[in-house]
């Protein structure tokens, strides 16, 4: 009964999305007030229907309804309740439903917040979002229906993939998707502006907070994924340049560029067509990411089960959506030239460099990720690309970016007046260099030139970012949230760079073979292996090792790494034991039984690694803080453009 209801709700949602799209786009074009008025009810209706469908699926999971194929494939009676709920997004069909739910919620948020937008423009924005919703709903119903039935119902389910039975992974997809999907809002704003034929500073001011919030969520989502990979996959790595990771990183890079470009358009009315293009690009990359992980064209550790038919559908959808948006762009962008000026040392210049370098970074990741496809299509044979490509090429664009950030943050709009900040720049640079080299060569007494450069850049950015806020605070000037948010985000970035440098340069890793009772010394720590014991969990059997960790003789921790075999899927997972001591992360993983009581163990000591994710969250916080600035809310209330000004050529 409930699955049928859910299915029906999805179909209704599809119809409502179609109406939303139709009224939203045709209404303003034809000047039909009644049609435009129907858009928000359609949005609300779609949200309710989608929520209903999701609720029905959750109920099917919680109730162990194995007559639903998706539940039978991803759940099991022995699966703990928490994971039965999060299994909703454990595989392709359910994760698509999550996409659709989040899109509906974003659309609802925009509808609620659209009171201050001109009615025609708001209708267009919601209409474009409706087109996206329609496409995804159609795709789901046509190729990936989560409500498909099994007849006869399975006696029990195939269980959730054990890798996904982890609290971290419960939270990662919703947060990540909220960010991913959130770029649809900027996309919709861009399309609406192109349909209107008008794009001004006001448009940028509307778009900024939405983009900043989406960006914050995406930052958190990527950080969570990386954090989860570190703890669950547990081999100390937190970024593998895996195609699925890259699929979320590319929109992030472009989204960051978009945020900065919007600042320029907002402030000076410059870079308007470029900002438009970035808004289209950011969401396009989100959608491309969706395509890549579900179509089977790329080999990856964590892509969903692949199906070429789905690939064809998504590709068609991509061509229509993005092709359509880019056609609009080709039509409208030529009219968006502005006559404002700025000098080389101005803030606009630095934001220009920021954008160029971020987009190049994204293009580099794009090239590496799609290289197997491109090489194959051009008949150049097979090629496989991994960290040895990504690491050096990524740094080529990001190292200059970091250096320019430290300088550019002092530049004023239009006329940089960098000379005024020359002293501050020099002092901060020197202090950073001293501290950085002290960290690398003094504290850790290891690492080479790259580590020193990384540490110096990170510290320089941190110090540089603090100069202006501290100066304003001392002069009792106001500190608007936008500025605080920006400072916080840049500080987060600085911390990230420093943490990354220390982790990459100062990690110690050793694989050892130990008999029970034997010890080994790695770095400053001693590890005594006390043997392996069997134990059972709720839906798995495990072998748990006991390792006593001491530092110069004094006890630090007792670690218990495990190897688990899940009963249903019979998958072997390795549970790494992790502890913190004096800022170091100590990781211990159990290897293989080498016979005669000897086991292999992997020991890793990673200094300051947690800072990597703390830094990412600080960045996200900065973005959210900036989005909450009063200007975005106040300005909208005073600005009420006449609704009849459609089709005016932009200037």
């Amino acid at each position, binding site marked *: 009964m409930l699955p049928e209801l859910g299915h029906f709700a999805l179909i209704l949602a599809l119809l409502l999305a179609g109406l939303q799209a139709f009224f939203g786009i045709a209404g303003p074009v034809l000047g039909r007030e009644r049609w435009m008025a129907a858009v928000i009810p359609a949005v609300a209706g779609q949200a309710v229907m989608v929520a209903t469908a999701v609720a029905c699926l959750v109920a099917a999971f919680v109730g162990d309804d194995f007559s639903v*194929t998706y539940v039978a*494939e991803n759940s099991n009676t022995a699966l703990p309740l928490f994971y039965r709920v999060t299994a909703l997004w454990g595989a392709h*069909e359910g994760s698509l439903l999550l996409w659709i739910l989040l899109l509906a919620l974003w659309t609802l948020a925009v509808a609620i917040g659209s009171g201050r937008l001109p009615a025609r423009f708001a209708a267009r924005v919601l209409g474009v979002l409706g087109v996206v919703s329609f496409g995804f709903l159609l795709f789901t119903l046509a190729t*990936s229906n989560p409500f*498909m039935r099994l*007849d006869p119902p399975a006696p029990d389910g195939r269980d959730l*993939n054990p*890798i996904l039975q982890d609290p971290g992974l419960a939270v990662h997809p919703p947060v990540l998707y909220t960010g991913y999907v959130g770029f649809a809002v900027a996309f919709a704003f861009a399309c609406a502006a192109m349909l209107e034929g008008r794009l001004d500073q006001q448009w940028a001011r509307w778009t900024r907070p939405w983009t900043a919030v989406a960006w914050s969520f995406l930052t958190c989502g990527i950080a969570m994924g990386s954090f989860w990979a570190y703890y*669950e*996959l547990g*081999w100390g790595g937190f970024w593998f340049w*895996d195609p699925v990771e890259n699929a979320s990183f590319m929109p992030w890079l472009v989204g960051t560029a978009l945020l900065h470009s919007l600042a320029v358009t907002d402030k000076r009315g410059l870079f308007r067509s470029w900002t438009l293009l970035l808004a289209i690009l950011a969401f396009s990359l989100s959608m491309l990411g969706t395509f890549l992980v579900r179509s089977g064209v790329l*080999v*990856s*550790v964590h892509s969903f*089960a692949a*199906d070429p*038919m789905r690939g064809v559908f998504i590709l068609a959808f991509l061509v229509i959506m993005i092709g359509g948006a880019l056609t609009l762009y080709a039509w409208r962008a030529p009219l968006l030239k502005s*006559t*404002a*000026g*700025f000098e*080389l040392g101005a803030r606009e210049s630095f934001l*220009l460099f920021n954008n*160029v*370098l971020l*987009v190049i970074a994204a293009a*580099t990741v794009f090239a*590496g990720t799609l*290289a197997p496809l*491109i*090489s194959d299509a051009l008949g*150049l*044979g*097979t*090629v*496989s*690309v*991994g*960290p*040895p*490509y990504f690491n050096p090429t990524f740094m*080529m*664009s990001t190292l200059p970016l970091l250096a320019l950030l430290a300088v550019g943050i002092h530049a004023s*709009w*239009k*006329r940089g007046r960098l000379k005024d900040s020359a002293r501050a720049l020099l002092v901060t640079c020197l202090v950073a260099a001293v501290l950085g080299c002290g960290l690398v060569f003094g504290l850790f007494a290891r690492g080479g030139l790259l580590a020193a450069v990384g540490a110096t850049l990170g510290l320089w950015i941190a110090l540089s970012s603090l100069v202006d806020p501290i100066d304003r605070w001392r002069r009792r000037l106001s500190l608007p949230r*936008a500025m605080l948010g*920006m400072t916080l985000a840049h500080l987060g970035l600085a911390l990230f760079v420093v943490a990354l440098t220390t982790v990459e340069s100062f990690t110690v890793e050793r*694989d050892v073979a130990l008999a029970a009772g034997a010890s080994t010394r790695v770095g400053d720590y001693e590890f005594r292996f006390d043997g392996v014991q069997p134990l059972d969990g709720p839906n798995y059997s495990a072998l748990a090792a006991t390792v006593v960790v001491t530092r110069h003789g004094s006890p630090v921790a007792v670690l218990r790494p495990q190897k688990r075999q899940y009963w249903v899927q*019979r*998958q*072997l*997972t*390795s549970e790494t034991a992790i502890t913190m001591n004096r800022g170091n992360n100590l990781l211990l993983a*159990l*290897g*293989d039984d080498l016979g005669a009581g000897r086991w*292999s163990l992997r020991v890793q000591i990673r200094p300051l690694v947690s800072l990597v994710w703390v830094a990412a969250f600080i960045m996200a916080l900065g973005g959210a803080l900036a989005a909450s600035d009063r*200007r975005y809310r106040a300005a909208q209330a005073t600005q009420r453009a006449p609704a009849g000004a459609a089709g005016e050529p932009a200037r």
Partner: protein
Amino acid sequence: MRVHLSVVMAVMLAALGAAGTARAVDPTELPDPALQVRYLALTHELRCMQCQNESLADSPVELAADLRREVREQLLAGKSDEQVRAWMAARYGDFILFRPRYSWRNAWLWGAPAVLLLIGALVSWRIVRERTVLLATDDAPLEEDRQG
């Protein structure tokens, strides 16, 4: 019972990845520390052919252990890194390499970042020049309260 293609593929993929997240612990210690460094670098750069996107160093399957042994023996026999890579690629194709070969076929890939940076620099220069010229005729006041 209708079995979705996705179920079939999921089962196949599960079978392929049946090792779950258990990774390899490789307590090899080559006598020469320099060789050990090269060994670790090479086993991280070579792909495990049975897994999705894992390196030889990380993969727990037997084939990976056998291939690691090959790397070990070749390094001990004095082969260079490039010789080891070539040996592997001769049997498994370029797909086994995580570092794309430096060849004309991959020139577009390795050259892309540098070319893009060059284009980026040219474009930036043009834009800055254009805007600097416009600065002379730009009298519009700045809204000073905006910090963003």
